[in-house]
């Protein structure tokens, strides 16, 4: 047994390695990125007996992992919460097909939206798919649960999900590691039709999933991660999920609660344990990171005003992540602050790096667009979304991966002229290519600007799936070659960029302008590595 100082994300990566995975599949997304990065840096990755290359998006990642599971091997998929929306189709259906080798889907939620466009709670997806969900409260549990998730997955032939949130994902703590398991041998499914979801087979498979529900509940009822801790003061019983337990322990300095506590870490929810704490206490406080998932379940249709307290009655704020102060307040134990920051402090929002090519492109685009009027630029998810802020104020949308092209098309369909889309190269290969096909098939009057910095820059400069073939992809999809233009976004090329953008906007059909210059961060990192080699 050895001990390692690991981020929650890294503990999951190490847990997966020690569970003998044969592959990890993921698309970068805060706060999940470090799981894959940790595995990529591992010894096993260097020995080359492990798949650990980034996928084009979360859907392809989920499907490839299912394919690896089909072959009898263990696989893990990692994504941020909104990534599961992209992977939802294979995710939901993998619950029906079931698995062969263990399959674990790790989803990192981002309550308070530190780096995201919403704070959706992935536990609902687990319930939706009717599969077990594990929710660690600390780094050690993140490691242990990942290992156990594979065993659980193989025991019931079901995918298993792990849900973490930002603070655990990005917090470091010492983790005790246990003996690693060897990878599974290649073994095709015993039933050759298991994965054929024709209605006649799907109906049978669905019955199997439904029959498994009792087992999943039994597992949760008896899980060491669902723990009833008795307390003398029965006026309040406290239910915690995930890291909320730590905040609760924090405010009782002795490290234990005078009130009975039900610590939940494994779903489906343990009904007997919930009944126990409900019956033994006068009122309940539900502390959960994310949506009021447990609280709504407990309340059912009868809004029990006096008995159940949490996010729905305002005892805990309805949105945002928890912290020790919020938990203390919910228990009437307000922690007082001594100082407050002076009012004259300026906000310091994130910004595009000095020397970034996006800056030069936005300067040129703004120069062109001032002749056409405001609110005609649709954009997407990446560093360039910061172009929505001053000094650029250059873009008017950021919704989901790839939506810039399709929204620009829809607006053009409605008569907006010009209609411009701004999208990064990795976002384009993630979910923009199919939208470009729609626009190409109708030769929609849309000007698509692809900011090609050859990296997934916002999440730390991971390699982009386009691999230098953006131009070929656009032409292959059906954009007319003479309307696929390339510019180099540098201050000295400002006039040329203005001219090219203007020409393509004036063209009454689909065009693509590829603004091609390496991300300044990956460039600096690459030069540093080169100097080291010399």
């Amino acid at each position, binding site marked *: 047994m050895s001990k390692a100082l690991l981020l929650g994300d890294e503990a999951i990566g190490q847990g997966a390695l020690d569970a003998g995975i044969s592959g990890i599949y993921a698309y970068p997304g805060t706060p999940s990125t470090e799981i894959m990065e940790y595995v990529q840096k591992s010894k096993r990755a260097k020995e080359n007996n492990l798949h650990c290359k980034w996928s084009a998006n979360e859907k392809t990642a989920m499907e490839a992992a299912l394919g690896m599971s089909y072959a009898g091997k263990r696989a893990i998929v990692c994504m941020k919460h909104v990534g599961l929306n992209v992977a939802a189709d294979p995710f939901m259906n993998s619950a029906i097909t079931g698995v062969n080798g263990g399959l674990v889907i790790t989803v990192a939620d981002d309550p308070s939206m530190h780096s995201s466009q919403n704070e959706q709670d992935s536990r609902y997806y687990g319930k939706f798919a009717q599969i077990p969900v594990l929710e660690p409260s600390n780094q050690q549990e993140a490691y242990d649960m990942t290992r156990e998730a594979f065993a659980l997955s193989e025991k019931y032939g079901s995918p298993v999900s792990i849900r973490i949130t930002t603070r655990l994902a990005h917090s470091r703590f010492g983790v005790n590691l246990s003996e690693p398991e060897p990878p599974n041998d290649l073994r095709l499914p015993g039933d050759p039709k298991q994965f054929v979801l024709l209605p006649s087979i799907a109906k049978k498979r669905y019955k199997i999933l439904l029959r498994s529900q009792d087992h999943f509940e039994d597992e949760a009822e008896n899980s060491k991660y669902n723990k009833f801790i008795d307390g003398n003061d029965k006026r309040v019983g406290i239910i915690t999920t995930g890291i909320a337990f730590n905040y609760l322990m924090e405010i009782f300095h002795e490290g234990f609660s005078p009130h009975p506590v039900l610590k939940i870490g494994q779903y489906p929810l343990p009904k007997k344990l919930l009944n126990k704490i409900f019956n033994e206490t006068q009122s309940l406080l539900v502390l959960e990171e994310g949506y009021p998932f447990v609280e709504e379940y407990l309340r059912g249709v009868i809004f029990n005003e006096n008995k159940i307290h949490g996010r729905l009655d305002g005892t805990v704020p309805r949105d945002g992540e928890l912290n020790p102060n919020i938990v203390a307040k919910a228990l009437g134990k307000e922690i007082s602050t001594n100082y407050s920051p002076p009012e004259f402090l300026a906000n310091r929002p994130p910004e595009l790096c000095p020397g970034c090519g996006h800056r030069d492109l936005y300067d040129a685009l703004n120069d062109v667009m001032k002749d056409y009027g405001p609110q005609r630029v649709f954009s997407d998810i990446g560093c360039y979304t*910061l172009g929505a802020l001053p000094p650029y104020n250059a873009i008017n949308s950021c919704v989901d991966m790839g939506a810039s092209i399709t929204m620009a098309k829809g607006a053009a369909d409605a008569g907006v002229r010009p209609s411009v889309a701004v999208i990064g190269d990795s976002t384009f290969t993630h979910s923009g290519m199919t939208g470009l096909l729609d626009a190409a098939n109708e030769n929609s009057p849309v000007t698509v600007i692809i900011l090609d910095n050859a990296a997934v820059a916002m999440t730390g400069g991971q390699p982009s799936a386009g691999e230098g073939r953006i131009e070929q992809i656009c032409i292959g999809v059906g954009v007319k070659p003479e309307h696929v233009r390339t510019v180099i976004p540098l201050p000295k090329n400002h006039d040329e960029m203005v001219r090219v953008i203007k020409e393509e906007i004036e063209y009454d059909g689909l065009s693509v302008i590829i603004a091609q210059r390496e991300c300044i961060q990956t460039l600096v990192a690459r030069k540093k590595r080169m100097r080291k080699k010399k």
Partner: protein
Amino acid sequence: MKKDIILAGVGGQGILSVAAVIGLAALDYGLEIKQSEVHGMSQRGGAVISHLRISDGIIHSDLIPEGEADMILSVEPMEALRYLSFLKQDGWLISNTKPFVNVPDYPPVEKLLEEINSVPNSLTIDADGIAKRLKSPRSTNIVIVGSASPYLGIPIENIENGIRQIFGRKGEDVVNLNISALHAGREIALQEKQ
């Protein structure tokens, strides 16, 4: 023994290296640590914060409660003040004096320093200037660690070991430069104390 430290700065200034040195020093001294970081969007030139908790007992929360931090250690004066609500009544506020100006409405530095110095246990240090004089301009953050070192409850030898662990790969010269930076920062703090 328990020390809760808020580390503050601007994305790209390297507050995670400050956290790493102190964290490794604490581990070297046989203490437990929990350290929460900021990854993702805010790293691009935005305000960043890290919670570093050191203890000889169990550490529950990954986040320090507001009003209970033993120290705010900042590599930038405006960021030193942003998280003031975390500071304990007798906690230490330690900050670099050099501003990182990337917003148009950045307040006058004198006003910021005045505000910092109004906290009873406070220390401002020209870490950039000191690092430059040592001919090691990239050691600014280690000067800051040095200025915090008398109040960390960790022996200086263990902090030196933390530096060795981090910079060891870069060779003995880099290690020694950073250990000098550590002591230069510490000296200032000890002089102030008198």
